[in-house]
């Protein structure tokens, strides 16, 4: 029964490989940190993790996780509404609401699930979703599972958004959906303008703060802080899998009735375990840490501007960024791959991205900065970029 299908899959896999799109995984033998160990024993500096605040190996979070293992065990073996809710889940939900200045919060196993289960319980075929074309895959899947009418607008293009909003006036409710930071470019969504349009065209706003929570805004409250729009969007989704510790888990935070409705109807919430208690405990500790001091955010902001400035001075073509993502533009896919490979030889781990992950002829290396990077790490990376960049004639 499987023979034909095997043949079919093999040919599909060959096609992926021939197109140069086959994804190979690099295996890491150490904790996630500024410096990591690969399984061949080599040590490299990591500039491609979403470990923005350097919390992935934080002793404070590890301690909190361990304490929770002792008091709350390992797994819940149940979904939230049966017997899978611990007091730690509730506490973390409250902390997240406080952090973002929202009314209530619901946790998910991952932000993929938060986005995947967001739209269907709230909107019907009478409503409209107006979504930025560069939104994350999980938002796209969530929209696909919802019957609402779909509109797409060009990335951060406010004229285009306005025309879609105008076209969607017949619908009962409208919601504008955007990533806070777009993961391939590092640009932030123009939330001030989005909010103005939302007001004018009576739309709600949803922001995915996965790449901005902990990162953007003076105290890391995300793009609502950057645009001075705290509590002004209806729905924020975010992840605990990036800046906020990096383990796993996501959340939706916002208006009380919306969260309440999700708790009753959101399928990934109802049909899957929540995050394990130890992850909830580390999340609580993480928010406490971010409230006690702003050191991590400050260091991240310093590291990012230092790196971006030095790279620009060297002549690299850097996409304008307001996040900890720094896209070094190479345009040519082969060149991007070559540069990444040569940098790895120099002990710098970065990834080249090319079509179809980014538009054709817009190949790049995406550098992600972290509060865990020391000055010497940054300098070493900049030096390596300079050396290989010159050798490959990317810069003079």
């Amino acid at each position, binding site marked *: 029964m499987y023979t034909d299908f095997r043949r079919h*899959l093999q040919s599909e896999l060959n096609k992926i490989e021939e197109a140069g799109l086959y994804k190979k995984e690099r295996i890491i033998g150490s904790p996630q940190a500024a410096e990591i160990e690969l399984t061949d024993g080599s040590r490299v500096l990591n500039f491609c993790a979403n470990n923005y605040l350097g919390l992935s190996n934080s002793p404070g979070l590890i301690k909190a996780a*361990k304490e929770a293992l002792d008091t709350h065990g390992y*797994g819940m073996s149940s979904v939230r*509404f049966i*017997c899978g809710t611990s007091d730690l889940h509730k506490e973390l939900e409250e902390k997240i609401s406080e952090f973002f200045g929202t009314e209530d919060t619901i946790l998910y196993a991952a932000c993929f699930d938060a986005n995947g289960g967001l739209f269907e319980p709230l909107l019907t075929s009478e409503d409209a979703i107006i979504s930025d074309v560069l939104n994350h895959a999980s938002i796209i899947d969530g929209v696909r599972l919802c019957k609402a009418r779909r509109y797409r607008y060009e990335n951060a293009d406010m004229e285009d958004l306005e025309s879609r909003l105008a076209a969607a006036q017949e619908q009962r409710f409208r919601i504008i959906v955007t990533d806070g930071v777009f993961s391939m470019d590092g640009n932030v969504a123009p939330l001030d303008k989005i909010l103005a349009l939302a007001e004018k065209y009576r739309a709600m706003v949803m922001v995915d703060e996965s790449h901005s929570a902990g990162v953007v805004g003076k105290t890391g409250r995300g793009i609502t802080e950057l645009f001075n729009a705290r509590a002004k969007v209806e729905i924020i989704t975010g992840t605990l899998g990036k800046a906020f510790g990096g*383990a796993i888990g996501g959340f939706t935070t916002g208006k009380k009735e919306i969260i309440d409705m999700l708790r009753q109807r959101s399928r990934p919430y109802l049909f*899957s375990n929540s995050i394990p208690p130890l992850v909830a405990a580390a999340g609580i500790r993480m928010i406490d840490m971010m409230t006690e001091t702003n050191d991590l955010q400050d260091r991240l902001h310093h590291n990012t501007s230092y790196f971006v400035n030095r790279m620009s001075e060297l002549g690299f073509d850097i996409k304008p960024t307001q996040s900890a993502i720094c896209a070094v533009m190479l345009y040519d896919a082969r060149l991007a791959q070559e540069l990444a490979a040569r940098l790895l030889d120099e002990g710098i*781990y970065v990834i080249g991205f090319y079509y179809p992950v980014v538009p054709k002829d817009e190949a790049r290396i995406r550098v992600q900065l972290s509060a865990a990077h020391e000055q010497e790490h940054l300098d070493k990376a900049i030096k390596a970029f300079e050396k290989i960049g010159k050798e490959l004639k990317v810069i003079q």
Partner: protein
Amino acid sequence: MSYSNKVKDLYVNQLKDIKSAGIYKEERFIHSSQAADIEVEFPRGSDLKNVINMCANNYLGLSSHPEVLKAAHEGLDTRGYGMSSVRFICGTQDIHRELENKVTEFLGTEDTILFPSCMDANAGVFEALLTSEDIMISDRLVHASIIDGMRLCSAEHDTFKHSNMEHLEQKLQLHADKRIKMVITDGVFSMDGDLAKLDEMVKLCQKYDALLFVDDSHSSGFIGKTGRGTHEHCGVMGKIDIITTTFGKALGGASGGCVSGRKEIVEMCRQKARPYLFSNTISPVVVAGVLKVFEILSQSTERRDKLENNTNFWRKGLSDAGFVLKEGNSPIVPVMLFNAKLSQDFSKDLFNLGIYAIGFFFPVVPNGQARIRTQISAGHEMHHLEKALDAFIKVGKKYGILGLTKQEIIDKYGL
């Protein structure tokens, strides 16, 4: 923003409807580890109450097993807390591959790919493998996550009556012209506790040249002589093309799931399954715990044997007392009450007697088939089961349903 009263009122009213229909889900806060004895705060703000848990998927009692906890502690020390990345960027540790190999060996398959949850495994697997030229034929009672996965896939879909092999055969004939036919079922059905007829399904799939997909979330670790799952119980190990399962139930209960099966299928998921590509995988500390779970399970079958004995005792006890049960072969033992309100009242009375078991009713189960779903664990000792049985009998007497047939209960309480 424009969160008008119109929007707000809509949700407020819908929530009101949910409440007045009696299907509003209220969460109970557990302050202890997941185990046979737990400490519960319910309703919120009330004093903690010690109860016996009869509704967890903690089938093997491993959710707070000391060795698993120890392994998780060590995992935190050696592998850190989070990966902050997806698998193909910089989110793969050696222990992720180790766990994938371990699962492959345990299930008797060719290869395995981890997902953040089995919900995500099911949500991503179909779209990665099938296109509009293909057909998915699923049992009508498969888990919601499979339904979402099928909804995200452009292949056509059809359903067959629950475990009805004649109907499945009709459907295989009906769709004979499709390029790829995939038959999709749960191994153990979560609401009824019955097992899929995998032996017959394998035969049909061979006859009609179809692939067979099994979600073994409610069986991995304890169904079958050595706990490999429904395929072991049915004598068809090595003959299932795709198995998905979870680590969030019997296998430690923290989080995570996987797709295990034919080598190329797994490889294709690694290239194309969206929840795999766009979400972090299982965190190292959880991986460390699951690895320990597999070690415990491969050392002896003691836990699944105890679970089997517990289940037999529980089933016989309830049956002798005169309850109507769903027939089945798994530690899921549904006590049938048929009437939705009765199932809720029953559950409440049990809680007051220190027994935690949840009533399920439409739309989670078909209309008129409300029930208390009990789930037995190797973590239950005889005294837990005896106390729980006493409580069930006490409440059963109160409502006068002991010894009544299905029809008599329906006549008494309505549907």
